[in-house]
């Protein structure tokens, strides 16, 4: 009876956020399952497990990958980055600061995937245009924010990381001033 459990097991050493971990897992399990269930790195989320929502995105060798579509065995010997590795010691990554301060996270469930894809983008393109940000994140769904605030947060994070003083306008935090109606 135990055969279905043991016959399919495999082992691997995964390099996750710069730390090597030896893991034992059923060979058909995805990187998503192994991160969450074997490594207790539950920051990486799942919304469909079919490659449709982007919630499970991580970086593998610096490239965004849907961890629900990659077998954990395929990730062996490659560098894996997850949301848990984004902060440096106790200091937030600029992306994390920007998302937190701009209210670009609401329920926060899609955010780990979005943060990782955005990190990959900022490494490739430190000063992305709005269009480049939207293009990079086109595979990530978010149901709370309406996306625009996320685009702004990525732009702001890029500026912070470059040491540029640009920041979103006051009206992005406080609302647009009420326009004065002409003739009143």
């Amino acid at each position, binding site marked *: 009876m135990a055969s279905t459990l043991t016959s399919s097991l495999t082992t691997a050493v995964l390099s996750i956020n710069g730390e090597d971990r030896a893991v034992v897992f*059923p060979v058909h399990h995805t990187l998503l399952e192994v991160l969450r269930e074997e490594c207790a*790195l539950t920051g990486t*989320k*799942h*919304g469909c497990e079919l490659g449709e*929502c982007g919630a499970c995105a991580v970086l593998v060798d610096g490239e965004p990958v849907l961890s629900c579509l990659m077998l954990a065995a395929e990730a062996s010997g490659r560098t894996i980055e997850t949301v848990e590795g984004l902060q440096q010691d106790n200091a937030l990554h600029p992306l994390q600061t920007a998302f937190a301060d701009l209210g670009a996270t609401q329920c926060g469930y899609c*955010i780990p995937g979005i943060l990782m894809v955005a990190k990959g983008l900022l490494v490739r393109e430190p000063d992305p245009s709005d269009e480049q940000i939207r293009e990079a994140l086109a595979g990530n769904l978010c149901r709370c924010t309406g996306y625009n605030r996320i685009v702004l947060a990525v732009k702001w994070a890029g500026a912070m990381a470059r040491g540029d003083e640009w920041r979103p306008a006051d009206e992005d935090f406080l609302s647009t001033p009420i326009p004065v109606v002409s003739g009143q």
Partner: protein
Amino acid sequence: MSAHQSRIGQKRFELLGKPFRRVDARAKVTGQTRFADDLSFPRMAHVKLVRSTAAHANIKHVDCTVAEKMPGVLYILLGDELPVPYGILPVSQDEQTLAIDKVRFVGDPIAAVVALTEDQAHAAALAVKVDYDLLPTIDSVRTALKIPEPRIHDYGDEGNIHKKVSLKFGAVEDGFEQSDLILEDTVFFQGNTHLPIEQHSAVAVPEDEDRITLYSATQTPHYVHRVLARVLQLPASRIRVIACSVGGGFGGKTDPFNHEIVVAYLALKLGRPVKATLTREEVFYCHRGRHPVLMHIRTGFSKDGAMLAQHLRTALDGGGYGSYGVASTFYTGALQTTTYTLPAYRFEAARAFTNKPPCGPKRGHGTPQPRFALEVHLDKAAHKLGIDPAEMRLRNLAPADSVTANWLQLGSIGLGECIEAVVAGSGWKERYGKLPAGRGLGIACGAYLCGAGLPIYWNHMPQSGVQLKLDRSGGVAVFCGQAEIGQGSDSVLAAIVAEVLGISLADVRLCVADTDLTPVDLGSYSSRVTLMVGHAAVQAAERARDMIAKAVGDQLDVPANHLVFAEGRVFQAGDPSAGLDFSDAVIAAEARFGTLGTTGSYIPPRAPGRYRGAGVGPSPTYSYTAAVIETEVDAQTGMYDVKHVWVAHDIGKAINPTLVLGQIEGSVYMGLGEAMMEEQEFRRLPKRLSSALVHKMPSMLEYKSPGFHDMPEITSYLIETNDKNGPFGAKEVGQGPLLPVIPALANAIFDAVGVRVDQVPIHPDLVLKALQAGARGKEARAGPAAFPDIDFGEPIIVDTPEQGGDGRAADDPKARRNSGVGSSAGTMKDRDQALKEKDSASLTTT
């Protein structure tokens, strides 16, 4: 108002109105937030539900003989072990944990397999064989009317019609008689679903003997608690429900669900933790989303654009179970009177049972559909009457603090300012009707509840409670049953307590949504949390402040009411140096009074309506929104783009403007999704595959929702009306801003290319169809042809406030007709009376 309340009133807000970082932000951006599926416990087993492949059938036999012998299988649960029915509304206790003898839609759960691993549970679930005796399936309201037998449920108003409503307020016929223009429209709003990114998940852990803890992704832990007690037949005191941070709800996690009951029962039975996490396909089967609604609206207008009478008929496709449907049915008419003056109103509605996943509450609950019908209808009337659509709305605004024809007590109304803001922002006056061909602007408005006036089940108790614990550390612990679903309710709660006590957010810690540890709050639905939890938090914090002020006042020999709480200190007004740090102030109070704790609670004012059905619609106050949308339409293909949305929202008072903007933008996004593409569609399998009625696209790829490339620029304006019934003047923002978006798009398409699409979603092919009809000389319109013939029954006739009614139905023996005396709303005596006469005004609500 006590003296120190006025001190607080005089104090400049330290936090409120400022864009502070939400209290859960750090956890959410570092991956530390623990959602339900992130939890795991030693010896945890996994559940997989076996769901029906038939849309409507009697179950002949469930064969588990192969499945139960499969590796890792611990137990297979069938419905007869948990026979007690349940449902969110007391009037619709029509669900079974697992179907016992009948299934009502493809996806209805029949059995639960629990195994050591998820893979094993999944494999065994596939091996459970169900033998069905197929029944005719009902796929629409029309079919439900045509096929009354066999019934999907053995209760309901008649045949396969679950609920019928017929209400008449005021002199409707006279109003039509006096009208210069009578306009009729038939409109269809397709159903759609919440699509939260987080799949539902629940974990149950047995504790000691006969006690159980359930962790779940739920918006309503209190209602889940009640249902578990009912179905498990355990005292509620032995059940603890904890709502984890919810990864998106939008109304989709407000019902108690099968898998929650299953894991709780199995954890107790097996004596080990049990988890169920649903697949995305299963989330589509849970549904409880927007009802498809066919509507017929007929309105009489004066030549200057005032509405004199309206008759609205709605037909709701409810799906396989009651869910919140009775409330949804009333909501397809209840809030029609909240934005513009309407002296006479007739509303008829019917909800059908159909063999589809049950519909329920989605953001705006029952209101977006009739709001779409009304706002498109008004646009047409404005054009017929030669009045600017923005101007026509401004002329007919409902007066603040008035009582509507259907007896809703309105509060502050910033709708006029909202309209003016979006008109100015969009350049409406210069651009409406004058843009180049293919470009257009459209305007629409909306109003929404700030919490339902009544709880889901009748009781005398508060709808929200907050408890504070303070001690010599200077930290303040806040306990409240409210559930954070992403909307920022934790931050509102913490900020209100911090503001009243003059301390920083870092000194406030929260314990929320835990039925063992936190006072009851009814949950995150009906946009109730900021207002109701806010009031309870203010009361609890003011009581703590008063105790501290007394102790500090005595110690410093200063009158307590001269003390100010600010910047982490308690000091004498006008002399900040004469005072104590907050932690020393708490020490003084702890020494004086002993261990410190306070409570606060909130019960909404009683609404003036006393007729049957008056329970749905009342709220302590209403939020208002106006939106202008600019679109560009390709007249060759019907394809269109939304270029810009200007939206102004009457928030009362923004507790945190950044979070308010986030809710507005999220509502605009979700409204655009519904307007442009989202639909919960069904199809029949070919005959060789059983002809079952199945979900057309239970996946995130095929269920189209807007992505990063689909969002236009949004310009948001906040209008602050400082509502007297809101905490610090605050109103809701989570749902209201969705309402005007959908009709504003339809109206913009009309301005762009001169066609009407009376149907949602507005697919480009409908735009094209309307353009082609126009080109052939027919009416340039796409939409439903006719409203079915439905016998809604005799109306309940209610005199309006204007007619001197007292809120009761005409046939109510206590009714005071045409006496000209207003009603006395809101007293505890009225509340007691109403509770005694459950039948007069009682109806569940959400």
